[in-house]
């Protein structure tokens, strides 16, 4: 996806369904998905020497850390390697990736997201967790985490923290959400006229926001990634203590507060 200079941030996600579909894949689609899953697994093997361990579908860092684990759906296997280097050493990180690098079109990618979310959720539910985890994601894979969080709450009756980077919510999720955007990014809805706070309040009762002094595509680069990790660490720590996200936020990094960010979170 390319961000146009004057495109409303909400419009990037219009193709993502607002409702869960629960439509099973047909036989030919299952074959395609099995092939992609196999390639994802082979791709994961290339980074296993970078400190992570393979546990099922996940590449896991700091497994024995004391904090609630983060299950993060990335664009590729490089991103979890980079993020794990700067997260709190007590923060377990379970990395997974979307199909975006393995399919030709955005529509195909979206078409498999529900199935992929189910696959990852099944793997997540096999891990014994005394408290609900953090389910995180960046950009194009966001719908995967959104579905996982909704289904986790449905199946476990516990609210995970949904932590998203560069995505405006599409589905109703009755749990805490922390939305992060680059202040200069075209995916930042606070740059546009529509009321982002009101929009989120229609879909969740406990949301807050963080604005990084960064642009789209730069979040895993050397300077920004440390600041991204600070946001993630703080949100994870607060959620671990309270099971919620702080209503004292939003947090705006280095620069003027954006229009629409003055209102306290729901």
């Amino acid at each position, binding site marked *: 996806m390319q961000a146009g200079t004057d495109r409303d941030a909400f419009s990037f996600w219009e193709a993502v369904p607002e409702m869960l579909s629960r439509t099973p894949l047909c036989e030919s689609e299952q074959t395609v998905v099995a092939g992609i899953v196999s390639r994802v697994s082979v*791709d994961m093997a290339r980074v296993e*020497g970078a400190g992570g361990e393979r546990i099922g579908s996940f590449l896991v860092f700091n497994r024995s850390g004391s904090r609630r684990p983060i299950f993060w759906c990335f664009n590729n296997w*490089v991103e979890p390697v980079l993020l794990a280097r700067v997260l709190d050493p007590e923060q377990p990180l379970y990395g997974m990736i979307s199909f975006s690098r393995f399919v030709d079109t955005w529509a195909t990618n979206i078409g498999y997201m529900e199935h992929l979310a189910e696959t990852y959720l099944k793997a997540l539910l096999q891990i014994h967790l005394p408290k609900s985890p953090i389910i995180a994601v960046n950009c194009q894979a966001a719908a995967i985490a959104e579905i996982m969080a909704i289904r986790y709450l449905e199946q476990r009756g516990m609210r995970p923290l949904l932590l998203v980077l560069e995505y405006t919510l599409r589905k109703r999720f009755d749990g805490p959400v922390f939305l992060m955007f680059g202040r200069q990014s075209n995916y930042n809805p606070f740059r546009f006229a529509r009321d982002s706070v009101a929009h989120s309040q229609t879909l969740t009762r406990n949301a807050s926001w963080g604005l990084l002094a960064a642009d789209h595509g730069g979040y895993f680069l050397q300077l920004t990634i440390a600041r991204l990790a600070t946001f993630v660490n703080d949100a994870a720590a607060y959620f671990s203590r309270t099971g919620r996200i702080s209503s004292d936020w939003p947090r705006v990094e280095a620069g003027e507060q954006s229009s629409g960010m003055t209102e306290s979170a729901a």
Partner: protein
Amino acid sequence: MQTPPKPDRDEVVHWLHLHVATALSESSEAVDVNVPLTKFDLDSVDSVMMAVDLEKRFSVPVHPELFLNADKSLVEVADLICKTPAA
């Protein structure tokens, strides 16, 4: 605690040279240590793993971005690494 010695520049160049040649499945003769890394067909996983392996081998902190935005040659990368205090 004694600080580990800085890595030897020639040794780092040699290591990088072999590492890139192996990643590209090329002979070392085919890899010019004086051209920008962008000239080679390395993907982001190659780049990050090179940084991680280099850290382990020479006990120096190496940020993967050194290889991800690789407008530097292997010799220039080795120069930077050898100026970095050992971990």
